[in-house]
C-alpha cells in the first residue's frame, strides 16, 4: 500500500473550494493538468448550460421521473480526512484476489494496489485519470469522451466532462492478457456530495481483461449525486469483461453513461448490478463496428421501497456478421419502479446480424411497477433478431413446493428470486465473480428484510 501523495509524485492538489455544481465549474484540480483538458472542460460546461433538462415528453425519458433530477442540493466535496480515508479503505473489500485496485472517495484518489512487476513490464497501465492525463497524454486524449452520449443524457455527459476530476484509466497493449480482475471503488461520503467518476478502458488488439467497479456510499442515510461515464474501447480480437456493482445509499441520485466500442472480432461483456440508489439511470451503448464483434449486455436490479431504476440501451450493429445478446432481469418489491428502454439497431449493410434482447420483470408487491420498451430497428437483410419482455410474479407452485418442505416463506421467496436473477450472473465465465455478486444480492435481500 502506498499513500496518495506518493502515487501522485509531487502533483499538489489545488483543492478548489467545494461549490454547488449548478454554480459553475470548479477551478483546476491539479496544477499540472494540461491546458487542453481545462479548455475542454470549459466547453463542456457551456454545453451543459445550453442543453435543456430532460422532460417527460422526451422519448428517451418516457416513464422516467424527471422531477427527481434536481441538481441544486449537490456540491463537490473536500477530500476526506486521513482517518475517514483509512475507514473507507478498510471497507473497500470486494473480490479478494485482484491484479490491481484503485480507491476513490468523493472523487478524491485515496489509494492503489500496484500492478505486478510482470504486468507493468508488459506495458499495462492502470492508474488514476489525473495521472494518466499527464503521463499518457496522447493515448488518453485520443479516447477521452470520444463516444457521444446518444441515449438521452447528452446534458449529463457534458456535466460529467465539465466536472470530472478523477477516475480510472486502464490500458492493455497488444496481446496482453490479465488473468485476475482489476478493481475500483468509488465512494460517496459527504452529505450532498457530487461525484463524477470516469473510467476509460482501452484494450489493444488481442488483449484480455476483466474490470470490476464498485459504487458505494459510506452512509446509507446520506444524500449524494453521482454522474459517471465509462468508456470501453475494445480493439480487434480483444476481450473485455466489465462489471459494475451499484449500491449507493437510499438517497442517492445517479446517472451512469456507458459506451462500448467493439472492433473486428472483439468481445465485450457488460454486467450492471443495481441494488441501491433512490433514482438510478443507466445508459448503455454497445457499438459493434467491426465484423465478427460480439457483445453481451447483462443487468440485474433488485428494488424495494421507493427506488427507481431506469435503463436505456442500444445495441448498434454497424458492421455485418456481428452479434449481440442482452438480458436484463429486475426483481421489484415495495413501491419500486423500473423502466427499460432498449433498442436493437441494425444499420444498412450490417447484414448477417444476430441480435437478441430479453427483459424479465418479477413483481413482488402490489405497488411495484415495471415499464418495458424493447425496440427493434432493422435496416439490413439476412438478420436474425428477436426481443422479448415479460412481467409476472413468483410461481405459486414453486412457492408451494418449498413451503411444503418446511422452508419459511421469506426464505423460500429469497431462494426463488435469487434463482430468477441467477440466470444473468451465470453468463459470467468466472465462478468466483458469480459467487461474489450473489453475495451482494443476498446482502440486499437482508437489508430490506424480505
Amino acid at each position, binding site marked *: 500500500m502506498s499513500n496518495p501523495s506518493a502515487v501522485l509524485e509531487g502533483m499538489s492538489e489545488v483543492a478548489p473550494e467545494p461549490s454547488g455544481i449548478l454554480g459553475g465549474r470548479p477551478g483546476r484540480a491539479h496544477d499540472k493538468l494540461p491546458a487542453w483538458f481545462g479548455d475542454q472542460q470549459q466547453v463542456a460546461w457551456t454545453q451543459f448550460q445550453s442543453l435543456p433538462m430532460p422532460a417527460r415528453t422526451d422519448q428517451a425519458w418516457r416513464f422516467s421521473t424527471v422531477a427527481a433530477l434536481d441538481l441544486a442540493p449537490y456540491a463537490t466535496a473536500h477530500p476526506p480526512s486521513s482517518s475517514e480515508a483509512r475507514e473507507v479503505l478498510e471497507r473497500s473489500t470486494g473480490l479478494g484476489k485482484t491484479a490491481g485496485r484503485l480507491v476513490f472517495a468523493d472523487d478524491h484518489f485515496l489509494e492503489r494496489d500496484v500492478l505486478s512487476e510482470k504486468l507493468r513490464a508488459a506495458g499495462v497501465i492502470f492508474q488514476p485519470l489525473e495521472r494518466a492525463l499527464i503521463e499518457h497524454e496522447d493515448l488518453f486524449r485520443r479516447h477521452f469522451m470520444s463516444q457521444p452520449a446518444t441515449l438521452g443524457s447528452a446534458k449529463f455527459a457534458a456535466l460529467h466532462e465539465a466536472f470530472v476530476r478523477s477516475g480510472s484509466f486502464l490500458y492493455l497493449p497488444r496481446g496482453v492478457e490479465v488473468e485476475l480482475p482489476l478493481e475500483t471503488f468509488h465512494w460517496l461520503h459527504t452529505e450532498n456530495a457530487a461525484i463524477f467518476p470516469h473510467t476509460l478502458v482501452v484494450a489493444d488488439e488481442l488483449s484480455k481483461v476483466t474490470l470490476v467497479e464498485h459504487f458505494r456510499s459510506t452512509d446509507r442515510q446520506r444524500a449524494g449525486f453521482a454522474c459517471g461515464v465509462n468508456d470501453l474501447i475494445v480493439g480487434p480480437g480483444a476481450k473485455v469483461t466489465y462489471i459494475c456493482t451499484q449500491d449507493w445509499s437510499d438517497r442517492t441520485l445517479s446517472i451512469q453513461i456507458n459506451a462500448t466500442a467493439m472492433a473486428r472480432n472483439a468481445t465485450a461483456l457488460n454486467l450492471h448490478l443495481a441494488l441501491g440508489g433512490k433514482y438510478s439511470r443507466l445508459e448503455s451503448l454497445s457499438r459493434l463496428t467491426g465484423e465478427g464483434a460480439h457483445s453481451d449486455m447483462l443487468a440485474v436490479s433488485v428494488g424495494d421501497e421507493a427506488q427507481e431504476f431506469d435503463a436505456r440501451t442500444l445495441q448498434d450493429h454497424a458492421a455485418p456478421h456481428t452479434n449481440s445478446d442482452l438480458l436484463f432481469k429486475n426483481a421489484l418489491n415495495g413501491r419500486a419502479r423500473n423502466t427499460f428502454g432498449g433498442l436493437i439497431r441494425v444499420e444498412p449493410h450490417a447484414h448477417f446480424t444476430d441480435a437478441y434482447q430479453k427483459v424479465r420483470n418479477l413483481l413482488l408487491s402490489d405497488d411495484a*411497477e415495471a415499464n*418495458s*420498451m424493447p425496440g427493434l430497428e432493422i435496416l439490413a437483410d439476412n438478420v436474425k433478431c428477436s426481443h422479448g419482455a415479460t412481467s409476472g410474479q413468483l410461481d405459486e407452485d414453486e412457492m408451494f413446493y418449498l413451503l411444503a418442505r418446511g422452508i419459511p416463506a421469506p426464505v423460500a421467496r429469497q431462494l426463488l428470486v435469487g434463482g430468477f436473477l441467477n440466470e444473468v450472473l451465470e453468463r459470467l465465465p468466472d465462478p468466483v465473480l458469480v459467487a461474489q455478486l450473489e453475495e451482494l444480492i443476498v446482502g440486499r435481500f437482508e437489508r430490506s428484510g424480505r
Partner: protein
Amino acid sequence: MVKQNTTLDIERNLGNFAYPETHTHDAGVGLSEKTVHYISDVKQDPDWVREFRLNALRTFLSKPMPTHWASKDLEAIVFDKIRYYLSGGTQPKRSWEDVPDDVKRTFERLGIPEQERKFLAGVEAQFDSEAVYSNIKKAVGEQGVIFVGSADGLKEHPEIFRKWFGKVIPTGDNKFSALNSAVFSGGSFIYVPPGVKVKHPLQAYFRINAENFGQFERTLIIADEGAELTYMEGCTAPKFNTATLHSAVVELVALKGAKIQYITVQNWSNNVFNLVTKRGLAHEQAEVKWIDCNIGSRLTMKYPGVVMKGRKARGEVISIALAGDGQHQDTGAKMVHAADETTSNIISKSISIGTGRATYRGLVHVPKHLKNCKNNTECDALLINANSRTDTYPAITVRGTGNAVQHEASVSQVSAEQIFYMQQRGLTEAQAMSLSVNGFVNDLVRQFPMEYSVELKRLIELEMEGSVG
C-alpha cells in the same frame, strides 16, 4: 437473399380511376372556423355538434405534430391545401338504381353491389364526404338494428348517440382525432339491441374520388348487452399527383357480454396519408376484436385499441401490414386493462418489400391493484429485400402482482433454402417467394371472413409478383 428492387402496383390499379367532380357542396381549400361553420350549415348540425366541432378545431390548432416520435413524413401534409368537405348534396340512396351513374359505376367496378348480394347484411358506401348509398337487409332492420350514417345517427337517435359519441376517443386524444372531430362527415352509426346477434357482416366502403381532399369519417358502433356484430370496411382512392388525407375516428362500445369484430382491409393508393384513431370500450365479459390489414397508403399510422373496463373483458388485435416501395405502415395496438381478469392478445405480422418500412408500435397498460390480467403480444416481421426496413417499439407497463404480460418479436427473412427447395420442385422463384410470404401470414389471413381471405391471399400474391428478380 433477394437484392432487386421492386415496383408493385398491380392490385392498386383496381381502384386507380376517377370520374370528373360534380360536387354541389365544397367547403373550399384550407381550414378555419369558416370551414367548420360551412360544414355545420350544410349538414344542418344541432348546436351542440357545431360547438363540439369548433372546440375540436381549437384543440387541433393548439396541438403540435407528433413528429418527436412519429415519422417526419407527416410534415409533408399541408393543411392549407386540403379540401375538407365535398358532397353532391343528396341523401344516401336505399337502392343502387338511384345512385348517380358515375358513382354507381365506381362502386360496381370495386365489386361492392355484388358483395352485398352475396354475403352482407348491410352496406354503406361513402363517396368523398358523404354516403351515397346505405341499405340494410330487411330482416336485420326488423331485429331493431340501426345502421345509418353518422349524421343521421346524431339527429335521429340522439339519446344513444350523444351518450357515447367522443367518449371512447376524446377530441384531444391526438392531433388527428381533434381534426376529425372538427370536420367529420360520413361514417356509420350502428346500434345492435340487447341479445341480437347479426349473422352476416355489415360493411362500409370508403371511396375518395377528388384530388387534394381529406376524408374524415366518424364511426360509432354500440353493441348492447349480449349483442354480436361483425363490421367490415374497405377503401380505395385513385392515384393523384398530390397527397390525400384520410383521418377517421372509430369508436366501439361493447356493453356487458357483447362482441364486436371490426375488420379493415386498407388499400388506399400510395399517396394517401392514413392517420386513423380506433378504440373500443369493452364492458364486463365483452369482447372487442380488431382485424386489421394494411396494404395501401403512403403513410399509415393506426393503433387500434381496447379499453377493458369491465371484469373479464377481452381485447384482441390481429394485424397484417404489407409495406411496399415508398410506403410506411406504422401500425400497432393499444391494450388498456382497467378491470380484473381482463385479457388481451396482439398478433402482428408485417412484410417489408423494397424500400418499404413496417413499424409496430404498441402500448400495454396494467395499472395497480388489478388481479389476473393477461396480455400476450407477438410481432413477427419479414424482410424481403436488402433495403427493406422494419421497427418495433412496444411500451409495456405493469403494476402489482397477479398479472402476466409477455411480449415477443422476431425479424426474419424468407430462407434461401426454402426458396431453393420449392424451385427444385419446379416453382419459379417468384412463385416460391409468394408461397413463402403467404405461408408467413396464413394463420392470420384465415381469421378474415372467407370472401376476404381469398381476396387477401390473391392480393399478397400480386404484391409479391416482380419482387424477385
